[in-house]
């Protein structure tokens, strides 16, 4: 038998691919842009962290692909991959010092080279990069060789430290608003990033918790499961109550700026819930969804603003009209596209979205909806003596909207209508052959989706106090679609999670806004590869098991069973 030989080709390939990604990060300017924020003050910046994480990931992948389980071989593979990664970046450094790359790659600035070379010049920097590659590669290999629990603990702890560093502003504001928690603030953060002792203690805390939780967690959940049903019920009730309290108190906890972010997340989540009916349940790809958002916002504006001088309804008086206008628009769009499927439908709806935006801009409609100047002086919502002005108040308005939309979607999904939508999504012809009226079913989906978008638009208009045509471009449609895909098609919690991830996160990282769409693209590709069903996939219902007893109680003889000859 031939002795197995060390397969060096695989790790080299993986290392080169990883290195290419690292060079890409550097040349598109992410490393430099991210280095303005320190994860741990004075030790590692976000830019360096990006490189380190990609390097570790590369080494880990190489370790995982090793054909033989010997430890040395695994370490060798990850070392080789890390070395290749470091080598690629070092090569960039050397080439950059010889040739002016800036003519093509405008981000290949001296600052970038300095960052990559750890401020030590080209030669020393290149050597340092190689050494870094070797070290990180070996570390990744070791991580792979660790037992599951240790690995989980380490990865979790690192993840938490990185997240705490990336979201430092959010945390600082949150802790700062609460007197007693200010102590944590001082311990954890310096002015620029996590403090060294703060980062270390966070690391130890998370690692320790994860490690012990993996031991005791299953025991604990087992014990909970063995509680009597009454006890479980109370426990669940307490959980729900706690969740409700947190959701209600969120704006007070988070403060003004973060509440603003929350309201934006809410506006998109509300739209997402609507589009989820059209795309997720009924399977009709609508790329012009922003049109309904715009129609809701403009109806609210045109009916309430004293500036135009037609109507001066209050927010609540205008709201039903806005929703009805959305529904009508949904039906009007729906009728001509009834016979279209897939790509064709997508193109036509894309056009519809643009038509609405251009109409809003047009001089023709200017007297009614203000043309390019838009509509200003849209009043806020008033309930009793409370006027919803600040984001902290508007949050509740949007929360109610989202809850309403979520509740309706949830109830519809598991109904005759919801099943009809899903049947149309799966196979339109067969759905018709099951007695489903395609015209009514599709129009209801369009109308329902449009109603939620219009509601969202109306709240959005009142929140801003003005509407402008340029707020309603095609990117909004794309954003909403992305958040459904990332969250999980057809899943209601998925929409919320998707909105938080794709709308909330970018709002928190505004200084890196230019990489927003790069991150979107990467997130979508990654999702398709790793979790095609989304972050929070729709759970398949377990009706049969729940009610298995009733079946056994009244057994119907299966055909061919002894009962029937």
């Amino acid at each position, binding site marked *: 038998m031939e002795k197995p030989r060390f397969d060096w080709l695989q790790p080299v390939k993986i290392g080169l691919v990883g290195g290419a990604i690292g060079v890409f990060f550097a040349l598109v300017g992410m490393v430099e842009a991210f280095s303005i924020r320190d994860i741990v003050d004075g030790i590692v910046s976000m830019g360096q962290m990006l490189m380190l994480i990609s390097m570790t990931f590369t080494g880990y992948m190489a370790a995982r692909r090793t054909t033989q389980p010997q430890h040395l071989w695994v370490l060798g593979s990850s070392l080789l991959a890390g070395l290749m990664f470091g080598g690629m970046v070092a090569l960039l450094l050397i080439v950059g010092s010889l040739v002016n790359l800036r003519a093509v790659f405008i981000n290949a600035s001296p600052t970038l080279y300095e960052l990559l070379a750890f401020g030590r010049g080209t030669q020393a920097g290149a050597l340092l990069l190689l050494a870094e590659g070797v070290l990180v590669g070996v570390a990744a290999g070791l991580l792979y060789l660790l037992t599951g629990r240790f690995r989980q603990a380490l990865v979790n702890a690192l993840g938490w430290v990185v997240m705490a560093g990336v979201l430092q502003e959010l945390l600082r504001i949150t802790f700062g608003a609460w007197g007693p928690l200010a102590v944590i603030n001082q311990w954890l953060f310096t002015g620029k990033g996590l403090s060294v002792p703060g980062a270390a203690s966070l690391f130890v805390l998370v690692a320790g918790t994860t490690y012990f939780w993996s031991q005791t967690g299953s025991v604990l959940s087992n014990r909970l499961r063995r509680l009597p049903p009454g006890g479980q019920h109370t426990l669940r009730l307490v959980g729900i109550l706690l969740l409700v309290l947190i959701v209600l108190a969120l704006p007070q906890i988070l403060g003004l700026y973060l509440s603003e972010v929350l309201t934006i997340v809410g506006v998109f989540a509300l739209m997402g819930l609507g589009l989820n009916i059209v795309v997720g349940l009924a399977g009709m790809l609508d790329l012009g969804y922003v049109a309904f958002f715009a129609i809701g916002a403009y109806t609210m504006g045109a009916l309430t603003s004293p500036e135009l001088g037609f109507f001066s309804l209050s927010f609540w008086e205008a709201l039903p009209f806005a929703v009805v206008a959305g529904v009508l628009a949904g039906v009007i769009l729906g009728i001509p596209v009834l016979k279209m499927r897939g790509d064709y439908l997508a193109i036509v709806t894309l056009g519809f979205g643009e038509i609405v935006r251009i109409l809003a801009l047009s001089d023709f409609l200017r007297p009614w909806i203000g043309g390019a100047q838009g509509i200003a002086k849209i009043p806020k919502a008033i309930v009793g003596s409370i006027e919803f002005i600040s984001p902290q108040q508007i949050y509740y308005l949007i929360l109610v909207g989202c809850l309403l939309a979520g509740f309706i979607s949830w*109830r519809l999904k598991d109904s005759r209508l919801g*099943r009809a939508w*899903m049947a149309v999504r799966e196979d339109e012809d067969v*759905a018709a*052959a099951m007695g489903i009226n395609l015209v009514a079913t599709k129009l*209801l989906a369009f109308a329902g989706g449009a109603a939620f978008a219009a509601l969202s638009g109306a709240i959005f208009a009142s929140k801003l106090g003005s509407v402008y045509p340029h707020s309603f471009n095609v990117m909004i449609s794309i954003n909403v679609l992305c958040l459904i895909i990332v969250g999980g098609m057809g899943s209601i919690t998925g929409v919320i999670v998707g909105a938080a991830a794709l709308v909330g996160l970018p709002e928190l990282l505004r200084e890196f806004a230019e990489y927003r769409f790069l991150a979107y693209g990467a997130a979508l590709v990654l999702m398709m590869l790793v979790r095609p069903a989304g972050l929070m996939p729709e759970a*398949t*219902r377990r009706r049969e098991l729940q009610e298995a007893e009733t079946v056994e109680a009244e057994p119907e003889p299966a055909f061919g069973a002894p009962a029937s000859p």
Partner: protein
Amino acid sequence: MAILTARGVTKRFGGLTAVSKFDFESEENSIYSIIGPNGAGKTTFFNCVTGFYRFEEGDILFDGHSIVGLTPDRIVHMGIARTYQNIRLFANLTAIENILVGQHTHLKSGLVGAVLRLPSTVREEAAALAEARRLLNFVKLAGKGDFLAKNLPYGDQRRLEIARALATRPKLLLLDEPTAGMNPHETEEMMALVRHLRDELGITILLIEHDMRVVMGISERVTVLDYGEKIAEGTPAEIQANPKVIEAYLGRGSATEVVSQASAVQASPALA
């Protein structure tokens, strides 16, 4: 009494006449088969009956009412259901949801009922679920209701498709090659199921089938199509001895030879 009557049905695709002046009559509470070589127009005729295709000429009466111009959902309403040659379940719905969709025409609850979960809706849903479970049990899929349709084995999918068709409470059931791809044992079971549907539930069955054992074994009358035209009609025994049929299947020249052997092959799957 004839439950389904076709008079001079003609369906053309451009220059190709897929079904030509087809006359057909199916007795209530019978099992009839339509056979013919590939491309003979059998499935096209099914598509005409279920409203998938509009045919150019002729008329189809179901229970005395013309179905010309009706959409598929109206036709289901009248009591015609079908299965498909290549299984067309709702792949990403569970087995039980597939059957629930089949009951669509018999449920009434709308938007408001579903959102407010009115008592009438709750009752209706519970009854629908019980009915779905009963049908699942009936086609021997009890306990598999929570499986996604696409994850069921092939034979189960075929039976689920029949259960879904039954959920529409049809008077006439069109089965398009129900035993395709099945082993002899599964085929036996399917034949017994088809007989049972007719005998116990009183559903009229119209079959497209290639497996001659099935055709000859369970159908009362057989209609043979070739190039869109009816070339023969009669009892299984008559069809088996008909030289025109043998010619259509095996080509000119083989007819005489085969006829002489026909009595010997009576119970074998010779023509498949």
